[in-house]
């Protein structure tokens, strides 16, 4: 059972994460003798697969973007009571979600972003875009290969909840949110760039 951290606390997860059935495509490897990293496939689920995706009729559910886009009328009443969250895979576009909500992303109480492998860094930009372009203010949850060594990056790009990979120790992950005291540049967290902080300070050469 994966642990959920919200803010800086280990909490009970009241949401059910709904996934599409696994794509049957094998992972391809790069040609040549040097395989530098594993590849991330970008399977597009067929309409039949999306239609077949089972979503529990009650309770809070975090559903795939493709299911949301194709079947969103079915979920209208549940959106109204805050039972529907939507998650994006690493290659899926925040713009598609925002457009489907006429830009009102805050109608969703939860948006998830999946990191299929931690070296797939697309999700950090998705977080930044959701927070900064679309003004999303509710829970933004990192899903998938969520490891302690990236906690600092998740938080800085706008994530405030982290569904840890099963082997992770939650207390160590919480501590890792503070791996660095003062990052150099700004991001979603609105930190002042360090150069700005230096203004007016004595040059401590």
């Amino acid at each position, binding site marked *: 059972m994966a642990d959920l951290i919200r803010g800086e606390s280990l909490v009970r997860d009241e949401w059910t994460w709904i996934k599409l059935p696994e794509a049957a495509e094998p992972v*391809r490897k*790069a*040609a*040549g003798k*040097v*395989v*530098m*990293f594993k*590849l*991330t*496939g*970008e399977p597009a689920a067929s309409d039949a697969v999306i239609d077949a995706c089972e979503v529990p009729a009650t309770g809070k559910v975090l559903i795939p973007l493709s299911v949301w886009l194709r079947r969103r009328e079915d979920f209208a009443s549940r959106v109204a009571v805050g039972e529907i969250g939507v998650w994006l895979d690493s290659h899926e*576009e925040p713009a598609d979600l925002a457009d489907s909500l006429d830009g009102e992303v805050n109608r969703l109480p939860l948006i998830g972003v999946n990191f299929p492998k*931690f*070296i*797939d*860094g*697309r999700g*950090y*930009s*998705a977080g*930044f*875009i959701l927070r*900064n*372009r679309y003004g999303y203010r509710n829970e933004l949850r990192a899903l998938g290969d969520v*490891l302690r*060594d*990236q906690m*600092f*990056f998740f938080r*800085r*790009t706008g994530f405030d909840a982290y569904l840890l990979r099963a082997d992770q120790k939650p207390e160590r992950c919480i501590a890792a949110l503070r*791996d*660095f*005291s*003062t*990052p*150099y*540049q*700004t*991001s979603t967290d*609105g930190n*002042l*760039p*360090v*150069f*700005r*902080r*230096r*203004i007016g*300070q004595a*040059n*401590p*050469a």
Partner: protein
Amino acid sequence: MYRYDDYDRALVRERVAQYRDQLQRNLAGELSDDDFRPLRLQNGLYIQRHAPMLRIAIPYGMLSSIQLRKLADIARRYDRGYAHFTTRQNLQLNWPKLEDTADILAELATVEMHAIQTSGNCIRNITTDPFAGVAPDEVVDPRPYCEMLRQWSTFHPEFAFLPRKFKIAISGSLEDRAVTYAHDVGLQLYRDASGEVLARVIVGGGMGRTPILGSVIHEALPWRHLPTYLDAVLRVYNRHGRRDNAYKARIKILVKAIGADEFARQVEAEWQLERDGIATVTDEELAIARSAFSDPAAPPRPENDTEFEAKLAEDKGFARWVSRCVRGHKRAGYRAVTLSLKPHGVAPGDITSQQMDAVADLADRYSFGELRVTHEQNLVLADVALADLHALWIEARKHNLATPNIGLLTDMICCPGGDFCSLANAKSIPIAQAIQAEFDDLDYLHDIGELELNISGCMNSCGHHHVGHIGILGVDKAGSEWYQVSIGGAQGNTTALGDVIGPSFAASEVPGVIRTLIETYVEARTPEERFLDTVRRLGIAPFKSRVYGESARKAEVTHG
């Protein structure tokens, strides 16, 4: 040069602690090798053919004598008493022990150094002109902008795991000495009529398997927008760059696939999100960055020095060294000196701990305690008084640092190759040494004149073979090592990619092929032509027919 304050010190200290923890978890079996690999790479640590290799960052190539002494000390205590300067102006240790790497990083932190982002799929060390701040043709000193962007790129939370590595170079002079057209992003700084600093933004250049010169996507970006604009460039790349094939994952492939105009349009749209926002650089910030790169307190000197002139006239060796290794300076009575790390018989870019200590002493005595690393893998003392040149030469010679071959054929760029690197298809250092041996006559070398010969042991092109006047690339054919030769490549304002002259050669044939190319040039050149100019005038045909004609004749003799 830039000195750390409490912010920088805390960040580097915290990084050492983070890495130490990661290393310990890996050694204890808690962190798998697969999960550790990307983390250690972002700390410069490769697991190589014989041992780990640790690549230490030298931001935009600037070093203090204190730092160089520490590097000498580390190489002595944790390695075999030598190290290797790279084409990204960094330093590599070839034989450290994995268990020692956290301690090495802690030692580096004591002299304001680290190995952050020297490898891995992230923004790498930013490179620039090694003559920044002293070059007579400089329009804008690029170093404050390098430092600003170093801080912007260090642990940038959005761009820690890009599709592939990302290299930025910045130039601010009339002659581009930073190879800006062959980088993921090249920035050429210049001034408009009112003196405002602008950047020409070049995207999607690169060497590697698919060499491409970059495309200009912004002709005149005001300096204060550099971080936000680069955020937009990186965001478009991070979202849309290919991740399904490591060989097609660099930004150049994306730019080529959608076209530079479309890429520029997407960047422009993305940029609107942050434009004029919090990361826009203020005048005060730039002033702080610039204050770190003020000129040294160099006393004014006369334009000429009669003793120097006398030495020049009476000592041919000194004159030869001055002609190759000493460059003009923006201040009267000063010169910039290149110390050659390409003596014959030594792997290009290699330096012993003893030499590092000696260079640190020379920097203290003659150049205000600072030095620079060049992407051609040499060292520069940037502020030497004209009157001190002869004394410096005598000292440098004692330490084998005064080979008068800068810009000549034996001043080769060369990657570590198959002797050390696990990516390499072929060895490169023995090829470099065989060529050095073939051309060990200094008079002949000087007669050949300016010639850049670059060697890479594989398509990753760490040795910049695509932009060598002569480029040599190690290739693997059915398990044995072969070498492909190209000519006509160039860096600088007339950057060009070389053309392959034909089928590849066995290692033993390479020095002879180079000699044939040189002979062809010497016979065909006009008095003022460099090798490159002759190739450009005649094309590769005469070179090709001479090289292959001769080997064909040789084959006939052998088999006849």
